[in-house]
């Protein structure tokens, strides 16, 4: 796929996206709403594959998109790798990885991918709304912008991977099975590959249902990230939190 191809130039039959997600069966989540919203796309052929994590039964409303239930506490990116390995990816232009605790704006997928395509953002995320839990202020919505070309994309709650970028960042490096630290590695790797990353401010998602890292020890997460980053060339925060170009 060409980096700067406007969505309108692509035949609609060729536009396919795969949504991968994991929802917590035993915790309050927004999976049903999220899956419904993503399935409303008019411009993309969307396949959704989700895993239910926990001991409760898979809700009927989610059964059709749920591949299986996982009762053991398996780290997120190990599960995502398993899902990716079991799925022929050739027909998909984009993979969207989505958490189960977000609120997406109406029309999200079409609006988001239209911007992603227009600006040629190979790995990208929607900005977080102002009322979200914010780990990195850099990804909070910048009012007045449509999108920005950056050197940083978070590992969640929502991010997209274009087909050519999949070759660079997949499979996920299981030395950091929860994904801590990927975001500082991706910026360097994508840049080396000549691919653009970005944040779409026009379609911010709310991430306010559950506090991130609440399920885990922050220190353990940080130790895991530092250990991972020692093994992989990466950007510092100062380098990563930088806008190469902004679009309004």
């Amino acid at each position, binding site marked *: 796929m060409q980096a700067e191809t406007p969505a309108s130039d692509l035949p609609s039959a060729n536009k396919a996206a795969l949504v991968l997600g994991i929802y917590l069966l035993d915790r309050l989540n927004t999976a049903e709403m999220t899956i419904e919203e993503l399935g409303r796309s008019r411009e993309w052929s969307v396949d959704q594959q989700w895993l239910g994590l926990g001991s409760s039964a898979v809700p009927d409303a989610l059964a059709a998109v749920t591949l299986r239930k996982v009762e053991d506490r398996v780290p997120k990116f190990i599960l995502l790798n398993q899902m990716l390995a079991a799925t022929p990816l050739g027909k998909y232009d984009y993979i969207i990885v989505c958490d189960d605790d977000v609120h997406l704006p109406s029309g999200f997928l079409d609006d988001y991918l239209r911007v992603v395509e227009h600006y040629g953002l190979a790995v990208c995320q929607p900005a977080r709304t*102002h009322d979200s839990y914010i780990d990195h202020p850099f990804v909070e919505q910048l*009012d*007045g912008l449509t999108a920005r070309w950056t050197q940083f994309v978070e590992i969640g709650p929502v991010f997209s991977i274009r087909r050519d970028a999949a070759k660079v960042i997949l499979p996920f490096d299981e030395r950091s099975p929860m994904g801590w630290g990927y975001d500082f590695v991706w910026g360097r790797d994508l840049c080396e590959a000549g691919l653009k990353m970005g944040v779409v401010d026009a379609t911010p998602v709310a991430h306010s249902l559950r506090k991130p890292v609440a399920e885990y020890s922050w220190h353990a997460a940080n130790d895991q990230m530092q250990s991972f980053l020692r093994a992989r060339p990466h950007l510092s*925060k*100062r*380098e990563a*939190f*930088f806008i*190469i170009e*902004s679009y309004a």
Partner: protein
Amino acid sequence: MHSRDPLGRVASPCAIAAVVSTYNRSDLLRPMLESLTRQTVPTSEFEVIIVDDGSTDDTRNVVTSFTKTLPITYAYQRNAGLASARTHGLYLSAAPILLFLDDDDLAHPELLKQHLATHRQYPDDKYAVLGYTPLAPDIADDPLMHFVTEVGCFLFSYSYFKDGDVLDFEHWWGGRSSCKRAFLIEHGVFNPVFKFGCEDIELAWRLSKHEFRVVYNARAITTMSRRIDFDGFCNRLVRQGRSNFVFSRLHREPEVQRWTEVDRFEEQWRKIEPTYDAILHSARHLDRIARLKRDLGFALEESETALLHRAYFAAFRAAKLRGISDGWTQFAGT
């Protein structure tokens, strides 16, 4: 300016970035940019980031006309306010020192050199620098501008500290202050809720939790070139008051309640509200007389000056309280 590789990455950042947000003031922006062309610091050591906050005038053309003389980056955003524009600007630069400037000020040729010198003297990331902003000679004798800077201190108030003092969060005044980019990246950026007013002090308050300090350098000079008229200044204070109220709701600590003056506004506003229009009318009238006398070459007598200052003080105090009250009403209605 930063040197960049073909993928846009910064290979070696310059030492300091002047970040200017602007909105429909191309006539003021041009002399401001001209003043930056006369810096004693070589252009290889600095860059200018212009964030156009949705201007509909010829701001873009004015900035473009400086691309050959200044290491300048222009970025446009739909109108979103000062805090968003400044955050946008700080992310556009990789320079370790960020100097936030107003579009209606003029930079002294040594401005960037002085900010850099103080940062070198205080290399710890927690130290920021406050520069000095006098009035331009053509507005220095304006009765209102003199009052708000030297007497009532509604705009700047440099009279109670001296060069080299290390000050607290209340002194990180937007438009004339610099800081380490790394400190913002680590501890916080401007809150986009603030469209005008408090965006600087509110951020500094959050940064103060991480030992943020402000060093005053009186030789880091920007000159205020724009005269603000009476009604313009009242409007400004109403907006400032609204922001004060928002600030006071975001942070309930006593220091913030005191700084925002929200802790005692209700009683004061209750007394002032019935006569608000009359207070402003009276001050506006005296302001006109003072200007007329000045224009005709007559000096104000001491008693007239005292009366004018009392009127200014009452009007500006009332305008700010009105803004706080507006904020409260809006808050109570949500």
